[in-house]
């Protein structure tokens, strides 16, 4: 099954490679990996999405928790959480067709030069897939870049 793992990591030489290496060496393809600094510039937040059986992923998480650089590690899949992914795409198509697609998804136009548009959309990973399908229906998607998933726990609801 699909696992979303969230990691707080000390920014040290090789720290990212060590975490990614633990997953990669077990033969698990990392579907997406996002890394960025937190409010503390010495600490990064990693969000990692992998497919694997529960027991093995749990074991890799336990092994990752032994890495000195790892401050916190947890699996969000087991918790109520929100996931978002950003995509930017360059499309060659009639402007009105693009605009109508953007309107339906709540996506944004970033730039337009003649028949070329650069657009941006944020949503769940499956929504990003649907948006890209819609764009392809509207014209020729020349290129696109996805950010990978950023995820966070939902706010705790007061009992």
């Amino acid at each position, binding site marked *: 099954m699909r696992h979303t793992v969230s990691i*707080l990591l*000390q*920014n*040290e*030489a*090789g720290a990212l*490679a*060590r975490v990614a*290496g633990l997953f990669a060496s077990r033969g698990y393809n990392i579907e997406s990996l996002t890394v960025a600094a937190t409010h503390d*510039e*010495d600490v990064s937040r990693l969000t990692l999405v992998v497919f694997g059986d529960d027991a093995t992923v749990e*074991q890799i998480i*336990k*092994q990752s*928790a*032994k*890495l*000195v*650089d*790892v*401050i*916190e590690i947890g699996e969000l899949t087991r918790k109520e959480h929100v996931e978002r992914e950003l995509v930017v795409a360059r499309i060659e198509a009639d402007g009105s067709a693009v605009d109508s697609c953007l309107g339906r998804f709540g996506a944004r136009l970033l730039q337009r030069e003649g028949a070329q548009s650069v657009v941006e959309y944020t949503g769940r990973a499956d929504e990003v897939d649907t948006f890209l399908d819609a764009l392809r229906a509207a014209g020729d998607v020349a290129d696109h870049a996805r950010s990978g998933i950023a995820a966070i726990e939902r706010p705790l609801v007061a009992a």
Partner: protein
Amino acid sequence: MNAQLDTVGDISRTTSKHPLAGRAMTGADIVVQILADEGLDVLFGYSGGAILPVYDAVFRFNADHVREDGSEPLPLIVPANEQGACFMAAGYARASGRVGVALVTSGPGATNAVTPVRDSMADSIPLVVISGQVPTGAIGTDAFQEAPISQIMGSCAKHVFLVTDASTLEATLRTAFHIARSGRPGPVVIDIPKDVQNAPLTFEGSRELPVRGYRSRLHAVESATLTDAHCAAFFAQLAQAERPLIYAGGGIVAAGAAGPLREFAHAFGIPVVTTLMGIGGFDTTDPLALHMLGMHGAAYANYAMDDCDFVFALGARFDDRVVGVPDQFAPKARAIAQVDIDPAEIGKVKAVDWHHVGSLDTTLDRLLAYGARKGFRKDLSAWHAHVAGLKRAHAMNFCRDSEAIQPCAVIEAINRITNGRAIISTGVGQHQMWAAQYFDFREPRHWLTSGSMGTMGFGLPAAIGAQLARPDLTVIDIDGDASIRMNIGELETVTTYGLPVKVVVLNNSGDGMVRQWQKLFFKGRFSASDKSLHKKDFVRAAQADGFEWAQRLENPADIPAVIEDFLAFKGPAFLEVVIDPDAGVYPMVGPGATYAQMITGDWIASRSAPVAPTGQPTGMF
């Protein structure tokens, strides 16, 4: 590295101010000062361009702090190569329980250290390896003797620091020692660019890096206590058991828990099997000792594991060389309980019914106190009689009237004199298993072997390190002709430093364990494992390296006298024993086989009909 120091609440090990706090020092001087502060009395290492400032600082430190007897406070033991240095440091650590330190240069110096670092990681041995690195400005330019050590070692070590900011050097060094020895111990590598070694700094005397994730997890484990309810749950399971068995691993040795284990086992009358790494964690001469289990474990140890109905795993990780087929390991056990300091080991291979993550010594003390308070008592006399019967019926044995020297006879002869009180190191292969099977060990840290990694060439340098850690004990390297070749350059190190290490080479003209597998699984095709045409004269090689006592033993009748003379020699001594090249290691649980399929060989009684080996290479390793 951007590691930042805590601004408030500095983590400080010393409460009083360091007498040198505030003194101007170079990075290299700080390295040496920290080594002295950590209480080291010997360093191992090989010099080179990128570590020269540290070597110079060691020289100056020793010149400035000569002891009254003229000795140096931080003597440097120089090996033939860096692998030797790091295995010496590991031998020192294994024999003493203290952190061993090796100093190596960049590039090839550091890459030669990779094998012992990985070896120490796999066996949980506390080590600090300090490697020189090319100057920060040159990193990543394919500079002379540059290697990406933080990446390479990051996959092998407990942790690696690349110190690119000189202001963090002092805190990093102190933190490295803390990480190496705390929790589940392991090797830490500090990669120090040459400009950082030369940087003018001020010695602060106290700080460490926050490493807050590590510290908070460590604190959680160290402060984990067993509640009464959890103790009660343990004893409820033990009360159900008629045939309980303790399965003790290297964690017992690492945690210094041999004393609590002895008391616990005796208090409740539970027999003990140990893993290869757990040898010495329980006195092998104790009536409750069932010795080593696993692939080459004692038949009675393996049968006891097959027969028991409750397994109490202590600092043991259900390794494939022990468990064989996980589903069929301890098949009659109704419950398995496990204590380990590493949460990742709980239930990793076998699901367990009761567990505690914490230190083994305090956990055993607590369980013992709880059981005593509740007056826990269980009549296990039927189980004791059964186990005693197994030990009698399936005792270790070998061919005792052979014309060729049997290796086990040599080990028995040494053991009659050392009586379980010498430090024994080994290479890897048949001789390692014979030593594990036939020596007695009365205390922990007397058995030094490359357990998990299985590194040939470990024995000689480890013996050197152990002799420096324990000058009061006899240190014997039981080696094989193939294993000792791997680090044979260290024979000269033994004599250079006048260490009274005793080296035994059990020479069966090749890679005996490989041949044993080739006989069993590859139809006797001895691909690359036969060395009978090799020309080395081991005795002359030892003599060339300065061994005054170097002899070859070829006649079984000479064993007692030669062994006695060999061990009585005051200085370094080298003994080559030409052994029966066909001697095998038995019992053997083949790879991927169950204990019930154990082959016991010609001299140990089996309780089941022998199972013919498949004669096919198996997928198992």
